[in-house]
């Protein structure tokens, strides 16, 4: 499984309230949530993001609420992977359950710049900044987690196991 896309870069502690503001939590329809993803810190994100693009951010990404709507919104907006030095605990668990790929790498998160073209090999955990030629190694997910992500989340994964 390979992801490739343009990078949207943000800072530390990107919280669930800016990923998807609570005023939109009266729905859990992915396409509706995607319309408002990141809008409180970047009003242009939704209009610029393309399928496959990659979100790079600082430490503690996804801090705050337990809303599964946050990884749903990011995934439905077209983002193929989030790279950060660390993720907030509930977001980490929810992202996997929703089938949103996430990778922890301090080096990649620091070096990769906004707008860079990046490709990711999930099997090896290799992150390549195509723009600069630099390459970074994140700890790859074990096979069963990769299968959850490929199955579009935990529910899809459970269905494949039956």
């Amino acid at each position: 499984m390979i992801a490739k896309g343009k990078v949207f870069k943000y800072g530390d502690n990107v919280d669930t309230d800016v990923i998807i503001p609570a005023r939109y939590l009266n729905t859990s329809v992915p396409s509706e949530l995607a319309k408002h993803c990141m809008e409180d810190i970047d009003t242009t994100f939704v209009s610029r993001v393309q399928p496959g693009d990659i979100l790079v951010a600082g430490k503690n990404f996804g801090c705050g609420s337990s809303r599964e709507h946050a990884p749903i919104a990011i995934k439905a907006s077209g983002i193929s992977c989030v790279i950060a030095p660390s993720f907030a605990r509930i977001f980490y668990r929810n992202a996997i359950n929703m089938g949103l790929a996430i990778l922890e790498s301090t080096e990649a998160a620091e070096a990769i710049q906004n707008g860079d073209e990046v490709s990711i090999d999930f099997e090896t955990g290799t992150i390549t900044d195509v723009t600069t030629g630099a390459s970074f190694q994140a700890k790859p997910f074990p096979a069963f987690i990769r299968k959850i992500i490929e199955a579009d989340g935990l529910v899809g994964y459970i269905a494949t196991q039956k």
Partner: protein
Amino acid sequence: MGMTMTQKILAAHAGLDHVEAGQLIEARLDLVLGNDVTTPPAIDVFAKTCACGVFDKSRVAIVPDHFTPNKDIKSADNCKKIREFAREKGIENYYEIGDPQMGVEHVILPENGLVAPGDAIIGADSHTCTYGALGAFATGVGSTDLACAMATGQTWFRVPEAIRFDLTGKFRENVTGKDLILWIIGKIGVDGALYESMEFTGPGVADLSMADRLTICNMAIEAGGKNGIFPVDERTLEYIRTFAPDRYAASSYTAFSADADAEYVSTYQIDLADVPLTVSFPHLPENTHTVGTFEPIEIDQVVIGSCTNGRLEDLREAARFFAGRTVKKGVRCIILPGSQRVWNEALAEGLLKIFVDAHCVVSASTCGPCLGGHMGILAKGERCVSTTNRNFVGRMGHPESEVYLAGVPVAVASAILGRIAGPDEL
């Protein structure tokens, strides 16, 4: 190697004699919680698990509290969905609007006797960690985990490392548990306890009220923590005797204490007398400042309530300062009792009259403005002092509004003076 309080509870629920930090376990759950935001997607997932019913009708709690009484058609549709699910599955702990036991989830679950020492609880709400105040293990999860747990009564956990906060001494006058937890978050940061337990111990615990302990554990998540937890003492048992009399009488609870050789990644020694009146500035709970050390900041609104500070003790504290005083002209003060029980007792004690006479508005019990839902949304450029738990960008309304987090005494003094202030200035 010994175990922490949290590790002992997890080991007991996994049927193991011993667990270690980092170990992945499957644990039995005593209680599973959802609200009107997180339960609707969980119901869709639950259907896909093909479970006929919930694992135990008495061990699932569903609480409509975030956008209730419903703020719009979509939130009404969501509440209808969870109401019908609760009825169809025979869920015993569903709290309809107006029910004498209704209110904000983390205020009512302990009040309604659903939490006792030694329990393992998950909730699809990040502030589920509140229940650690009673010596339980409790943590937040997402809707998919909620759905699977409703079906099976189990979930998996990574056994957490722990940070110990060794408390001594006593608070100075008007300093509260809220000041302590804000101050700690200011010291360790919003990811200072990431993935870890925050265990509060030491002789200083004895002087902390249960309301203070609930406030402190409530905000463990704001330091990234998996859970917060207090040891069980006389105050805890008195609380259980009052609110969970059946479990108290039957001794159906377990008071776990940490082993002497339990391992902690770090230990903080805190003299409660050193804790100042603390305010978290926008837009992170870690941006803490001591009251009296900054230039005057004028405000538009004050919110008193929430799962952090909406208990009867909080309202008594607010009334103590509001009595005979009024909210500054031009400032709005909104008080949200945390539950119908709190509302009713505040009425009986005359607190609500003090608030109304002080020109506050008293709302129904709801999460409401805390997460920018309704009942007090901020306009562009407005500032609010709030006893709630988050001050992220756009949390209470417009992305260019500001939320300053504080304890009840600071919130009340700020409402009266129209600027962020401590009660000693009244």
